[in-house]
């Protein structure tokens, strides 16, 4: 346990959802053979010039607007100079002096309450390529794959506002949902389209002044960020408890040993020599254009979740699951518009639809059961035509065959058995075969009721109406010395 207050800031890089790169027409698709998606521009050949991708720029403006940033009507690109083999020009076109957005905020849910995180800076920049080292390939030399070079990124920098590893985790997850919902990034961590860097300091509780900041590099997945933060908290706490001070420095996270170690000073003693990119003219944003972009901002996950809870009566948990993916939330809303019982819709989606999607590796857009079909199934459940258990099988069949619920129920004879006379005989039979259960139920052990329902369900292949069975059990129990 730490005796100190933890102060964390996060820097995020998300690949923008554009078909082409930031300064040329090359594809941004993931997984192509090395260097197959390159041209003289993204290879940084002599004489080439960048051409700005307006869609990428608009994505960052949209992000900055949705994060309540102040937006300068004139922004400009800068050059960040450093040498590395994955950076063909040996400078990165980024933004420094005039980023697209500054001084915004982001509301997220953490530990059951809403937390506001300051957003210092939202800007546009290009990605570097990828080095493939001999350790990974067994080749004699390091190789460079420049397919990713020039891919557009948005960088979002928070203030030092996160106070625990849990908050950092909540931020990373909420931000991912936010960017996906905004449509600016697909945020696929495994494809490197969402990356984080963290900085952390500790200070005694109650102290206003921030402690010396330690930057953590080389942490690309959420899991590694969290692991590295835990490590740093342990390391810095030990130092402080020994009365030593924490040097301001940059550390690398060593995943294998789960430890952080300082970078050699040469590795980070960088002077980026920023200056205005002379190959790109400053970017003007007219008020009309700004408003046009603002109009494309959809309802964002937190607001949507709160609406699902307040207007549709969903639980925080269910609403949270639904808004995780904006397409799922949209599917839910389409279904809820056709079926009044929003909670029933939510249950069917969060339990059965999501399971089907996962098992079949489908996205909701490719899901064969459209909202009309799902609402039809829900209606039949309400009408007592099928039980919940059978409905699950019907849905599976609907997904597999693309047919509607009605024909499947008819063809397979799955219609719920609501014939009282048939069920009464089966219930009576079950009670006679299990007098122990009968007496237990009489004695108030409601759990024993299952031993009576089970055989009836088995006998009807699950088609019996569970409500009716329960009523019949009750009726028969209440009958004085029925047939005993």
């Amino acid at each position, binding site marked *: 346990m730490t005796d100190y207050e933890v102060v964390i800031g996060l820097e995020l890089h998300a690949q923008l959802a554009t078909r082409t790169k930031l300064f040329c027409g090359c594809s941004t698709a993931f997984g192509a053979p090395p260097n197959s998606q390159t041209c003289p521009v993204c290879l940084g050949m*002599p004489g080439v010039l960048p051409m700005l991708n307006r869609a990428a720029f608009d994505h960052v403006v949209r992000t900055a607007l949705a994060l309540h940033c102040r937006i300068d009507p004139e922004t400009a690109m800068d050059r960040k100079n450093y040498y590395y083999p994955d950076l063909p020009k040996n400078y990165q076109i980024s933004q420094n002096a005039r980023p697209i957005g500054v001084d915004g905020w982001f509301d997220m849910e953490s530990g059951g309450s809403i937390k506001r995180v300051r957003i210092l800076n939202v800007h546009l920049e290009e990605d570097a390529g990828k080095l493939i080292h001999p350790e990974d390939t067994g080749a004699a030399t390091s190789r460079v794959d420049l397919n990713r070079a020039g891919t557009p990124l948005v960088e979002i920098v928070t203030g030092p506002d996160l106070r625990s590893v849990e908050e950092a985790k909540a931020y990373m997850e909420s931000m991912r949902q936010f960017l996906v919902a905004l449509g600016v990034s697909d945020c696929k961590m495994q494809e490197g389209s969402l990356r984080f860097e963290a900085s952390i300091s500790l200070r005694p509780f109650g102290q206003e002044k921030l402690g010396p900041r330690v930057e953590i590099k080389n942490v690309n997945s959420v899991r590694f960020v969290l692991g590295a933060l835990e490590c740093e908290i342990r390391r810095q706490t030990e130092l402080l408890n020994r009365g030593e001070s924490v040097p301001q420095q940059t550390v690398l996270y060593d995943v294998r040993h789960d430890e952080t170690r300082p970078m050699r000073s040469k590795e980070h003693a960088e002077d980026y*020599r920023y200056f205005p990119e002379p190959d790109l*003219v400053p970017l003007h944003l007219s008020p009309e254009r700004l408003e046009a972009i603002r109009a494309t901002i959809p309802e964002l996950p937190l607001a949507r979740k709160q609406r699902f809870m307040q207007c549709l009566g969903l639980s925080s948990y269910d609403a949270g699951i639904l808004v995780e993916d904006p397409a799922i939330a949209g599917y839910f809303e389409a279904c809820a518009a056709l079926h009044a019982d929003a909670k029933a819709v939510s249950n069917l989606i969060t339990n059965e639809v999501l399971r089907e999607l996962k098992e079949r590796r489908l996205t909701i857009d490719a899901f064969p059961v459209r909202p009309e079909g799902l609402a039809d199934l829900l209606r039949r459940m309400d009408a007592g035509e099928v039980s919940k258990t059978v409905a699950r099988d019907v849905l599976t069949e609907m997904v597999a065959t693309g047919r509607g619920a009605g024909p499947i129920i008819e063809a397979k004879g799955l219609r719920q058995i609501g014939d009282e006379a048939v069920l009464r005989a089966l219930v009576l039979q079950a009670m006679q075969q299990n007098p122990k259960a009968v007496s237990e139920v009489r004695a108030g052990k409601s759990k024993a009721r299952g031993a009576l329902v089970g055989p009836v369900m088995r006998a009807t292949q699950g088609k019996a109406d569970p409500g009716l069975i329960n009523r019949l059990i009750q009726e028969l129990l209440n009958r004085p010395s029925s047939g005993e």
Partner: protein
Amino acid sequence: METHSLSAVELAECIRKRSVSALEAVESVLKRIEQLDAQVRAFVTVDADGARAQARALDEKRARGEALGLLGGVPVAVKDNICTRGLPTTCSSKILQNFVPPFDATVVERLRAAGAVILGKTNLDEFAMGSSTENSGLFVTRNPWALDRAPGGSSGGSAAAVSARMASLALGSDTGGSIRQPASFCGIVGVKPTYGRVSRYGLVAFASSLDQIGPLARDVPDAALLLRVLCGHDPQDSTSADRAVPDFLRDLDGPIRGLRLGLPREFFGEGLSREVEDAVRQAIETLRSAGAETLEISLAHSEYAVATYYLVATAEASSNLARYDGVHYGYRSAEAGDLYRLYAATRREGFGAEVKRRIMLGTYALSSGYYDAYYLKASRVRTLIRRDFEKAFQEVDVVVCPTAPTPPFKLGEKVDNPLEMYLSDIYTISLNLAGLPGLSLPCGFSSEGLPLGMQMLGRAWDESTLLRVAQAYQRRTDFHRREPKVSLL
């Protein structure tokens, strides 16, 4: 047939009228190159076979009755910092000696579309950094008027090629005077267009905010013709302007009566050689006699232009030249080892002294702690220099002054004194900082028979007026008609 003595306008007309074939025109300059270039050394690459193939294709096109374009069959030399598909583009640097671009610069595409024949690539100061072409990492080019003299720079190869009639026209690039000063030294016309007039796509960047491609030609109509072909918006260069391009050649012959010429007092002071001053003042008298008015003006901040230029240009260069690191293309040191040594050795061996000097200067100017005092301050002075011109152009239509402070200097004379070399651009540099158009044209000869040049500076986008004044001058003089007699050393 000896067509090399025809101007580009005349040659294009002859080819159009079928009195000369494109192949004959190419053979004529190729023969000329064979005779003279062993002495002059203007060309880094002569693409004889390629030029013949282009010419044959044009002749076939002509035989089919198709139009050839404004430059149909005219042989053009291209400065070797402008990318040509399949033809080495070295920037006269060891670091790019084997670099063959997979694409054409936009200006080269435009030349091809206009029917020009790309003859070859011309020598320059390495990466266009210099004023004499002596900084070439390959070899030194000589002035066709006197082989012991510098042709000027950095477009010295292009200027020498046109001057010695080894090409009808040539492309140069001008970052601080690199078209105008060699034009002056070689007795020809050179135009530096308004920044944004001509696409920079495919021009290997030295200082992106200053670089501009322009024509080198024997006379004003030739320059106007080539300029017309080069200009125009290019979506691949976001600094290129989307503006209508005038028909410079058609607009050439208007009167200049009543035009106001400004003589900046700062450009006629200390450091200007007597011979150059006399020639320029004589030229001004000629223009007055043609009806132009003159008045003295001031470009007060021009004394800071050289200092400002050597901060802005070197800062941009330090970044632009970072890509030559031996990793992706070009020269790579054999002495690799680890990454740092690969970078260091490649750049140490691949770049010449002047390029290294400027990279270091620029790196320093951008370094944290120095940025405000150097780069930022220079950017502010640049604004003041631009305002000087804006003010001047409220009073005058064209500014007239010398191009270079001296006649062509001797090879070797200034190589050990970079500062003195920098001062040979003292009258040309301000224009690039202001982004304005300018031209240099022959206005006389020194007592030693060396060409002297005068410079005209214009309002943004107003190359037409510059060309019109220059043409009015050339109609009254014959300096531009003289040809150098290249004599064997």
